[in-house]
């Protein structure tokens, strides 16, 4: 009975947020198009033959950046901005006195947005293949399934990191400024601009101790068929979620004690 109620809650949340996201379909299409930074990076890499230095063929590099684009599309997180606005405007107050943590609403918003974004991402991929016919490949079902799991885990890691930063709103009111500090390492160390394999060995050993390479690099390598340690990568993703979740809970409970319900 309890699990049925939870399932209904999840389903209704997703359904309502999906209906809401469909109202913003043009905006979401533009966001999807704005995420084509991996294709620019691909162009820079191939035009300068940079892939030779890391022993990746042109085709594999094309696939990597296409997969990086896909992973980014389905793991993009903006909860810090939504929560900051809602908390400063007092919109979070009604949610706080409901028997559901408000972050579930934001989580459902993100998932619904991903569903809305899916067809636009497919269209962009279609055009990518028209211009790069050599890159066309069909990943086997096992790899596809593991890649979807890995992308979802990447999304959860980013969601948890941003949620922790978002909770700092209870103290600083401008938590998004702190998120900006994380943007630079995310951009450079996640594999969005360059595969992590291209970094010097001693830098790589440090990067792999952070959550960043598991956000884009690992799932993109997995999906594109590049050599990667699947079980190690998935384990590290799960480990980061296990580490981040209690931090989020602690910051959340400490923060709500500080909440002043301003703006309402």
């Amino acid at each position, binding site marked *: 009975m309890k699990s049925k*109620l939870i399932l*209904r*809650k999840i*389903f*209704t*949340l997703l359904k*309502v947020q999906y*209906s*809401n996201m469909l*109202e*913003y379909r043009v905006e979401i299409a533009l966001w999807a198009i704005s995420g084509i930074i991996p294709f620019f990076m691909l162009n820079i890499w191939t035009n300068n033959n940079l892939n030779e230095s890391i022993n990746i063929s042109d085709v594999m590099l094309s696939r990597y950046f296409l997969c990086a684009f896909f992973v980014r599309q389905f793991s993009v997180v903006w909860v810090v901005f939504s929560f900051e606005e809602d908390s400063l405007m*007092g*919109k979070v*107050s*009604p*949610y*706080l*006195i*409901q*028997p*559901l943590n408000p972050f579930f609403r934001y989580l459902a918003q993100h998932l619904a947005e991903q569903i809305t974004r899916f067809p636009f991402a497919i269209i962009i991929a279609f055009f990518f293949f028209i211009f790069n016919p050599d890159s066309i490949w069909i990943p086997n079902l096992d790899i596809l399934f593991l890649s979807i799991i890995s992308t979802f885990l990447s999304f959860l890691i980013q969601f948890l990191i941003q949620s922790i930063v978002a909770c700092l709103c209870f103290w600083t009111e401008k938590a998004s400024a702190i998120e900006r500090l994380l943007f630079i390492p995310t951009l450079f160390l996640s594999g969005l601009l360059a595969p992590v394999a291209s970094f010097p060995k001693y830098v790589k050993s440090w990067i792999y101790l952070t959550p960043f390479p598991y956000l884009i690099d690992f799932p993109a390598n997995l999906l594109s068929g590049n050599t990667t340690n699947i079980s190690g990568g998935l384990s590290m993703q799960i480990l980061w979620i296990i580490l981040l979740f209690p931090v989020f809970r602690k910051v959340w409970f400490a923060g*709500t*004690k*500080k*909440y*002043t*319900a301003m703006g*309402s």
Partner: protein
Amino acid sequence: MNKNIIDVKNLSKSFNIATKEPGLRGTIKHFFKRQSKSIKVIKDISFEIKEGEIVGFLGANGAGKTTILKILCGLIYPSEGSILVSGNLPFKRKENFLKNITLIMGQKQQLIWDLPPIESFYLNASIYDLDKFEANKRIKKLSDMLEIGDELFIPVRKLSLGQRMKSELLAALIHEPNILFLDEPTLGLDINAQRNLRKFLQKYNQETNATICLTSHYMKDITSLCKRVICVHNGSISYDGKLDLLLNKLSPIKEILIICRTEEDAIKLENSGFTIKNKTKNEITIKVENTFITSSLKTILNNFDIEDIYINEPPIDEIIGKILIQKDYEI
């Protein structure tokens, strides 16, 4: 005898507020060294509210009424004191407590702006673990009570303020809470919408025996809904008791305008011992203490030939206005 559902003892709440001196010097100083001071917005207040009571919180802007409601519903932490709301510590925000309360803020909304209200109702229903059948039943019942129909299927952004407020109420009441915290629920509504909302709240209270804590700057909300008021002045309670008693205390005398059939009757009435405010031909205005209104009217009707009588109620806004600027009312 109804039991206490809200029990507040020696409640205080302080906020840290950042301060800054004016001018460039102040700005630079503020940049390098932030200064803040602790302001006590609620000062050692105690009160009890019984199940089914409708209590109005009165006070000027910034007096602390809304802060009290926010503490009672568990939105903000108290600094000192103890609070029990239906046996729970509100700030713990336990599920069974949250399922029993609701907070409606006149100037804030929880409905999803771009979707019709019905979507938000279903969402709230699932959050409160109601199945679809029960949700539909409650939506039907509440929409009948609130007199909303087609509006349920129109995006919130297209609704008028009154329609939106009704929908907000429905969303906030779908889980049938026992305790309602209403912070200026009629803010910005026109006279008819205000009246309908008051009627609804009265009916809801009668049908469910729900406890209602209400703040409002519209005195009609308070006078038509609340028998008891708690006056808050600078974070302290300046009066807690029956509204009637307070009004009698502040305005103990009523004026009665009597229109006599003849001028002779008016002269006779003038000399019969009543306190006269003014007299013109056959019209005479007398001042009578509230406690003697009935007996005075009886005497006048039995002894004089009267054409018409008007009892002038003192303007309630003026009376309540006095409360907002004074510190203590001993009744």
